[in-house]
């Protein structure tokens, strides 16, 4: 639970020595409670107070790292319940499960398929993050072989799924240096599994059954090892949503330490489409890792898009680089469209233009990532500014004509733009969805 200024004051030397820069110890305590200063400013604080207060000032949800360097993923360290309060920082990792019942070429083919779950979309490359190997066989050697086959073929971080310490030990012997996530310590096996986690210095998932049991088990484990991820063990979607919301709430609002760790979720359905639906709930509501079996590109792409959207910073409009974009096999006669560099606007326009199947240029003007009307209202998307960028962006050398299409919402700038640039301006549709019909009518 978060400490109040008075709680902190009780632990300070109460000498009012002023060496911390505050007039009194109480003032210092108040500043600490408000996270406006740090404990190391006090030269006289006792070791015991440091331990108690250090814990209280740690982030509400621990940052845990999984995977070898270069392919490492960071989990947790979130500070809000709602993205509009600040932002979500560490996107949910998507982990695809592989059974150790597969072997030989079958296993190789499966790893290759999962490895290929990377996508180019809206100018970015996104992919899954982890491969989870599950010890379905119950045999430690079979598990180790499967782990090795996966480790040989993938750069993704791995999750080792087995509650059998013997199997886990064999798996870690193969891949322990790449920081896999060990899944899982349970009430039955935690002493042995924690020893393995310490030995290999790997993050460890603690699996309980419901909130109370999980918190109790985490407390036992955390007494000696703190690189933890939580699984509440609940697979019923509604109950899991309630519990995962509660975990985030207790961690952030109450600084409840036993639940202040990233959370891992598993889809329960055997139907890949239903798994995607479950996973979409876990991406919006607080999972740091979601493990699933669905492995088709067509199924994973929508999830990566959702994750990207939910984890964008609401305070920072996403932008594309202001420049000329070539859509399709353009020539010197291809039409030229102009829009803003707000990525949402740009990619909506780009989608429609490429859908029109008529090779075209799109000029994304520098508008600081604002949309057409906002940019126009702010004077960033008027005749003068667009004319300047027409000169600067190099389009004059790319096409032999001087015709440009502007968004319908800024029809009023037509005159000024023609005058300043010398280009002939055509007013396009107000909504991007009108572009294919417009393109067909004007340029086909």
């Amino acid at each position: 639970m978060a400490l109040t200024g008075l709680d902190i004051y009780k632990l300070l030397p109460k000498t009012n020595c002023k060496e911390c820069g505050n007039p009194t110890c109480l003032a210092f305590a108040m500043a600490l409670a408000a996270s406006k200063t740090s404990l190391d400013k006090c030269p006289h604080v006792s070791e015991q107070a440091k331990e108690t207060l250090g814990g209280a000032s740690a982030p509400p949800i621990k940052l845990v790292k999984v995977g070898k360097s270069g392919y490492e993923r960071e989990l947790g360290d979130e500070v809000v319940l709602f993205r509009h309060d600040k932002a979500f920082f560490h996107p949910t990792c998507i982990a695809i499960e592989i059974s150790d019942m597969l072997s030989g070429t079958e296993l190789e083919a499966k790893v290759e398929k999962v490895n290929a779950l990377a996508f180019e979309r809206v100018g970015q490359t996104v992919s899954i993050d982890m491969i989870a190997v599950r010890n379905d066989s119950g045999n430690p050697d079979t598990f180790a072989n499967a782990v090795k086959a996966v480790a040989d073929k993938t750069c993704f971080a791995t999750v080792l799924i087995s509650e059998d310490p013997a199997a886990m030990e064999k798996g870690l012997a193969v891949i322990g240096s790449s920081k896999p996530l060990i899944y899982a310590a349970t009430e039955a096996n935690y002493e042995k599994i924690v020893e393995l986690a310490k030995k290999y210095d790997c993050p460890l998932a603690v699996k309980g059954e419901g909130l109370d049991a999980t918190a109790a088990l985490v407390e036992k484990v955390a007494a000696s090892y703190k690189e933890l991820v939580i699984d509440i063990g609940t697979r019923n979607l509604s109950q899991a949503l309630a519990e995962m919301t509660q975990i985030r709430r207790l961690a952030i609002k109450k600084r409840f330490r036993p639940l202040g760790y990233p959370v891992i979720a598993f889809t329960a359905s055997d139907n890949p489409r239903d798994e995607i639906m479950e996973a979409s709930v876990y991406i919006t509501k607080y999972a740091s890792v979601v493990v699933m079996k669905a492995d088709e590109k067509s199924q994973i792409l929508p999830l990566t898009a959702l994750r990207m959207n939910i984890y964008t910073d609401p305070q920072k409009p996403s932008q594309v680089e202001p420049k000329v974009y070539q859509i399709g096999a353009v020539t010197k006669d291809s039409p030229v469209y102009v829009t803003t560099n707000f990525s949402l606007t740009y990619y909506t326009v780009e989608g429609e233009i490429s859908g029109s199947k008529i090779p075209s240029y799109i000029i994304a003007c520098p508008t600081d990532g604002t949309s057409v009307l906002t940019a126009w209202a702010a004077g960033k998307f008027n005749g003068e500014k667009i004319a300047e960028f027409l000169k600067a962006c190099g389009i004059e050398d790319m096409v032999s004509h001087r015709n440009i299409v502007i968004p319908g919402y800024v029809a009023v700038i037509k005159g000024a733009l023609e005058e300043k640039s010398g280009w002939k301006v055509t007013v396009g549709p107000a909504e991007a969805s009108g572009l294919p019909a417009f393109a067909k009518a004007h340029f086909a």
Partner: protein
Amino acid sequence: MPVQVLKERNSSKVTSITLGATKEQGGTRTGTITVGGEASLPFLHFEGEMPNKPVIAMEVVDRVPEEWNEELKAAFEGVMDSPAAWAKKSVEEFGADMIFLKLQSADPELGNSSPEKCIETVKSVLAAVGVPLAVVGCGIDEVDNKVIAAVAEACAGENLLLGFATQENYNTIVAACMVHKHTVIAQSPLDINICKQLNILISEMGLPLDKIIIDPSIGGLGYGIEYAYSIGERGRIGTLQGDKMLALPTLGTIGFEAWKAKEANVGIDEFPGWGEQAERGILWEAVTASALLQSGLDILVMRHPEAVKLVRKNIGDLMVPNSL
């Protein structure tokens, strides 16, 4: 140590609104639908009741939407030239809770249908299905003011859900709803302040708040869904804290937004890296719905029957009571 569960004590809840009217109530529907009433964030049954499940309204258009994706059109093959048959199939075969009828052919460029023709279409759909009906115009204010007013009068007492009232154009449609006993869709452009302002303007005209459904506008998956998601959350939080002018059920045109995305439409031949199109399109729509269910949407306007099926199961799973 047992966990001290933290429950929010919410002071207020979403207004419950009933759509459609049975014979006894002055309409012809075989059943009505009630939406809203939530006293917590979405599906957190442990701290507030959620008396009504979110519902799926399937979209029907009064002209053949040639521009729709082939995959979508295939699902409605043989019925797209008849709104009544299309609606009937949507309800009987695909389990739609409601029908969302778009009178697009009123657009001078898409058929220029007269108000009389539009009334005929609405009546044919009312005759074909027993579920409540939402009816919206073609999106051109002058046309819609004539068409929707005429439909409101011709279907007086049905408690249709009529749209769209916007900040620029709400008088005619709101008056029609008041006089002929319908419910209105108040549409705002992804802006919670305009959303609230419009509800104030409409209720100042005399339409009670329990006759207003909010369409806050949404972005589809990949194209601005996060704005809609956060506006949904902010609206629900405001509602729970007692803001009456936000405390209304919400509607989102999921199918329309999702199927605008390139990712839902392009073939695997063009984008081999994105996988098979049919599956991708269906999930693009279903995940758009799923995310917005998590931010509090009450009425989901959808297109693809397979996406509808997935979302119905998702709603069912999430309506299972949870407790802490």
